[in-house]
């Protein structure tokens, strides 16, 4: 085999390698999946309890941590197995059971303020991440049941321990039971 037949073939192969390499290099920088959009799609799968059991201050910070690669996908107890599966499918990873170190998966509960014991201190108002508590200083507070995510973050600040978690009222539990 003479050099005249081999050299053009090598030339073509090298040319292709250079062109494709350049294209891939360009794609890697310019077409990188938008980090913001990835955070959005992760956040959309999280239950929005904003409970912080994942050790991040809310669902969005947790989504950002997953996108950065700092957090694993098994740290969300309220989301449970369904959320891990959805995250695994989105990120192309293997699903795994939720890590019990972050807490147990429970049915949805809502906070209820015992209004006879509430002293109107307003400490629970800023603690509620989803603004589900209405009230003002020296006035009685109450929880809007439909908006409460059951995150339990209002329990520690209450000086008289008048908040407890209960299953939501009839209509809501009935829906839950229908799903089961």
């Amino acid at each position, binding site marked *: 085999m003479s050099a005249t037949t081999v050299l053009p073939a090598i030339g073509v192969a090298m040319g292709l390698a250079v062109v494709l390499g350049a294209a891939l290099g360009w794609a890697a920088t310019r077409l990188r999946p938008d980090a913001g959009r990835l955070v959005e799609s992760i956040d959309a799968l999280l239950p929005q309890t904003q409970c912080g059991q994942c050790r991040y201050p809310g669902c969005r910070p947790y989504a950002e941590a997953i996108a950065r690669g700092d957090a694993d996908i098994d740290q969300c107890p309220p989301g449970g197995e369904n959320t891990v599966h959805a995250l695994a499918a989105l990120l192309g990873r293997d699903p795994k059971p939720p890590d019990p170190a972050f807490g147990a998966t429970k049915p949805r509960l809502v906070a209820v303020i015992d209004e006879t014991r509430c002293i109107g201190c307003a400490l629970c108002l800023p603690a509620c991440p989803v603004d589900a508590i209405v009230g003002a200083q020296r006035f009685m507070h109450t929880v809007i049941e439909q908006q409460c995510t059951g995150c339990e973050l209002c329990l520690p600040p209450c000086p008289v321990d008048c908040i407890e978690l209960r299953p939501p009222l009839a209509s809501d539990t009935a829906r839950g*039971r229908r799903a089961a």
Partner: protein
Amino acid sequence: MAPRSTFPPGLELEARKAAPMRQPLRAAPVPPLLVVALDQGSGDAAQPLVTAGARVRIGTPVGRAVGETSVAVHSPVAGVVRGVETRPVPGSAGEGACVVIENDGSDEIEPGCASIDWPTLPPQELLARIRRAGIAGLGGAAFPAYAKLAAARERSATHLVLNGAECEPWICCDDALMRERAADVVLGAQVLLHACGAAKCTIAVEDDKPEAIAAIEVALAAAADPRIELATLRAVYPTGAERQLLAAVTGLEVPHDALPPAVGVMCQNVGTAAAAARLVRTGQPITGRIVTVTGSGVRQPANLDARLGTPIADLIAACGGYDSEPLRLIAGGSMTGRALATDAVPLTQAVNCVVVATAADLVARGREMPCIRCGDCATVCPPGLLPQSLLRAITAGDDAEVARHGLADCIECGCCDYVCPSRIPLTARFRSAREARKVRLDERQRAAAARERFLRHEQRLAAMAEADRQAFEAARSRARGEREG
């Protein structure tokens, strides 16, 4: 998949209506304690208007309608409210808020109820009266009657069809109503025509009810209203389903993603029409309905005119009580009804029939076996779906495929179950898939709202911290200025 142009499929089922029809329609005794469900069957509950200790009379409002799909609820009896309690109810929720009323036996009527001079009333006013009267569709779905009528008026529907088909094998409350109160049905037709603005009305009855047809003919002759006609239909299940009935009567197919007024028609149950007639005659809101109590497990099957809120146990007692240990209690018919967990559930506007089923009534279902793709279900499906493919999509959890196969268009008639040689409970699967989907959507909506509020909360806290910091800086520089100056 080519859509069918009309409604030929369905099943010819053996009717089981003879036993209750041997007894005349009679009023059920009013029990000492009534449990009035705030959700009369449409799926959304009214807001309670009374608390424990309140005095109520027949027709006193006890629940306020919220939104478009709940109806106003009135006391069906005079007495004292014991409280608003969570109790078992016949709907899919299993339990719900109910106003529990102790009957004082006086049957005093709320003052101010007077007959309505409806022909002179503007239609909007008449619609408002129907809304306030809390009348829901009495055919079983309990969708608020006024909402359907108002939609028909808005879209200028021209043809009102009154549904007296009653195709379910066990139910015969409409048959009893048409036999004994045909004049009310025709008067109701006139009232509904006035309310919805349609030009003509067809009362549709299946041909297995000759007495009802004769009674309606007599009432029509007496009313001499050229706008109202009678149509007899061949008895095929499920002719009484809304879209199937409209196709059979008018030849029009309602698009799967639209409601009947889109093609200029609308459908109401004959019982709903009779309730509207009662409203204009007496001015009273709806406080009762006719219900069929039947099945081999009850001594004397009959049709009863009962107050809403009467526990099913009292209705069964009024029919001679249980004959033998019932295997299953079903609210609604054998094809579309729901099994009841207890006979403590009260009568609601949605309950047209209670079947006390024994082993003699129930066909042993046998063990469920794998689908063999025979396609029998697709040949009987009235809306023309492919139940076997739909089931496969549901099992696979493929939401897009489920939607493509028309889960939303399933009318839950049970025909596919009935013919399935593998005894797959298809309708139950479709029903639970639908409910699970609704729960998922609810959850997703709640999560989206929580996300929005969390973002606002974070922004607000950040703004407050920033304002604090600036105030502190300002105070510090002021203090420094004073010290130096």
